[in-house]
């Protein structure tokens, strides 16, 4: 009996101890769980170990708490994802290419421009190869830069540089930047050439006049004197032409389109054709007039005459006898930045000289609607313009063939004037050319919408 009682008491005691141990064990597990959860939630750092929050006692409480943490974590992940997307989009807006690699050389971030440059397989592949090399040396702690020049056409100059990325002298990777400096290099070139060409164009005739008049002063032979006087007259005429064109150019540049009116295009083109018919006849070039059409532009008539006239003058000048110069006008959707032209070949190089190059001073009162445009086209079958010069012919005093320039006359300002006239009207000039096949100039103007 006593033995049985003792046994029962012992069993009870053991059960109690076990129960106590169990409860203790559970509560310490709950405590540990609490600590872990708080660490996840980012709250543990301020709390001493063991000091679990007292309001989470039961397992259910913990589950509820964990669920709320999971929701917060999902939201945080979502925010991080949006943050990343925001950075990516912002990087894509940069005008330079950026590539970031980690310490193993694996790309961890890059923007759209960089991806485009790095995945090129033509001459642009040299930029990608250069960037890879610069990133390698940047990972070894060396910042370097390099200029990659590509012949084109169109020619391009890309500056690439690689920099180590480190935090407290601990290497984290490297970043490479690629910047297209073509426009900057070209602007410098244009400025330099302009000064050189201007002084050449003005000095040559003036120098000739000085020399001729010196000779004239010492000459007695009447026949020679007449010849000298004629030469002086011709050179003076040349200077006058240049000054006229310079004034015209600055007027077009400064005034914008002062006198805008409705201009019927076909009669205007016929007027130009008539004006140059004598010139064309002398060169044995056939001037093909445009087909009849009722297209009307809102434009400065004088400027338009001048622009088309300059193009026709060039077309005749650079054509061989027997060739055709065609004038035409057609409405255009403006979608085709490269109107097909059988003559120059669909794959002919194209230069676009748009309003972005020149500030447009005045908007036409009725702007283009539904992207409607009018194309005035002057196409010739002449000698053409070398592919690498198509971008430059619109520069002032720029000459493709310096030797031929004097023989053909002209001031070297004609196409600059054309460019400005078109820009004044909110349009753009497109040029297709192939040497030995022909050149096509397209003047694209916003279509005139008659106000209701």
């Amino acid at each position, binding site marked *: 009996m006593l033995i049985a009682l003792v046994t029962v008491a012992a069993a009870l005691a053991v059960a109690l101890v076990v129960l106590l141990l169990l409860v203790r064990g559970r509560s310490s597990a709950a405590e540990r769980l609490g600590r872990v959860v708080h660490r996840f939630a980012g709250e543990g750092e301020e709390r001493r170990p063991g000091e679990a929050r007292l309001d989470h006692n039961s397992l259910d409480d913990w589950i509820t708490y964990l669920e709320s943490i999971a929701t917060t974590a999902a939201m945080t992940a979502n925010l991080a994802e949006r943050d990343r997307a925001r950075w990516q989009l912002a990087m894509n807006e940069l005008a330079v290419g950026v590539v970031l690699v980690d310490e193993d050389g694996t790309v961890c971030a890059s923007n759209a421009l960089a991806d485009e440059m790095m995945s090129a397989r*033509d*001459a642009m592949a040299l930029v*990608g*190869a250069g960037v890879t090399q610069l990133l390698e040396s940047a990972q070894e702690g060396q910042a370097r830069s390099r200029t990659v020049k590509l012949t084109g056409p169109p020619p391009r100059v890309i500056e690439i540089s690689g920099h180590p990325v480190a935090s407290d002298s601990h290497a984290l990777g490297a970043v490479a930047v690629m910047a297209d400096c073509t426009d900057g290099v070209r602007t410098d070139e244009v400025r330099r050439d302009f000064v050189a060409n201007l002084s050449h164009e003005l000095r040559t005739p003036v120098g000739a006049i000085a020399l001729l008049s010196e000779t004239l002063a010492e000459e007695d032979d009447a026949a020679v004197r007449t010849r000298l006087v004629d030469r002086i007259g011709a050179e003076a005429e040349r200077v006058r032409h240049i000054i006229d064109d310079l004034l015209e150019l600055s007027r077009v540049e400064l005034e914008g389109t002062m006198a805008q009116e409705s201009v019927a295009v076909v009669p205007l083109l016929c007027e130009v054709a008539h004006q140059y018919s004598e010139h064309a006849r002398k060169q044995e070039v056939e001037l093909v007039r445009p087909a009849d059409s009722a297209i009307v532009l809102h434009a400065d008539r004088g400027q338009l005459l001048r622009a088309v006239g300059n193009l026709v003058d060039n077309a005749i000048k650079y054509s061989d006898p027997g060739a055709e110069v065609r004038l035409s006008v057609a409405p255009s959707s403006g979608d085709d930045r490269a109107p097909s032209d059988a003559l120059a070949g669909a794959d002919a190089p194209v230069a676009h000289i748009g309003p972005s190059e020149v500030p447009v001073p005045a908007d036409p009162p009725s702007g283009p609607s539904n992207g409607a445009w009018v194309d005035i086209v002057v196409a010739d079958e002449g000698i053409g313009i070398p592919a690498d010069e198509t971008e430059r012919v619109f520069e002032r005093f720029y000459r493709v063939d310096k030797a031929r320039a004097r023989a053909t006359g002209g001031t070297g300002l004609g196409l600059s004037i054309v460019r400005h006239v078109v820009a004044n009207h909110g349009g753009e000039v497109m040029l297709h050319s*192939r040497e*030995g096949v022909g050149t096509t100039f397209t003047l694209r103007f916003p279509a005139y919408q008659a106000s209701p």
Partner: protein
Amino acid sequence: MTEEVRTEFHQLMDEVRADLVQMGGMVAEGISAVTAALLAGDIGGADQIIAADDELDLLSLEAEEKCVQLLALQQPVAVDLRTILTDLRMISEIERSGDLVTNIAKAVARLHGVELEPRVRGLIDRMREQAVRLTAKAMDAYAERDAGLASVLNDMDDVLDDLHNEYIVAVFESHELGKIIIQHAVQLAVVGRFYERIGDHAVNVAERVEFLVTGELPEHLGANRARARREQDDC
């Protein structure tokens, strides 16, 4: 192969691929640069292009060494083996294209002072355009493992072949009109042939890419015919 060795192996294969793309870029730029030098009569520019070919030679030797290393040390099979064999063949194709660019550069000095007719100049420019396009497309097909693109390259090359024929006619017409002497006409004809050959090398590259992806070469058709004939003869 252990995981680490495999990673190293693929890293080296990727390096060869990057080397090849860079070589393709050098050839594409070379074609543009040499054409600009030729049309401008720029002997200095041509000399630079000749010097730049050394870079291409060095790069092709390095890439070849990597391929040999891969073959000898890793003994790859299946697609890896095909890739390395393709790479080896491509190295020599691209290197050869680079030599052709050098050949054109050498002709610049021989043609110095020769005034070319606009039509001839225009055709040279169009051959340049096609040669660059073919080279870039072939490299695209290789880098992207694009058998479809590779298969159209042969047709694209027909455009260059036609241009080449038109160009030869234009050069000799120019000679008949007394615009250029026969020595220069022949020199120009040879230059045209160099452009045309660059296109052929691009087509070879594309054929190798087709082999890489599909395991088939255009030559297999002819080879099968020959094999069939041989078996017939044996009977």
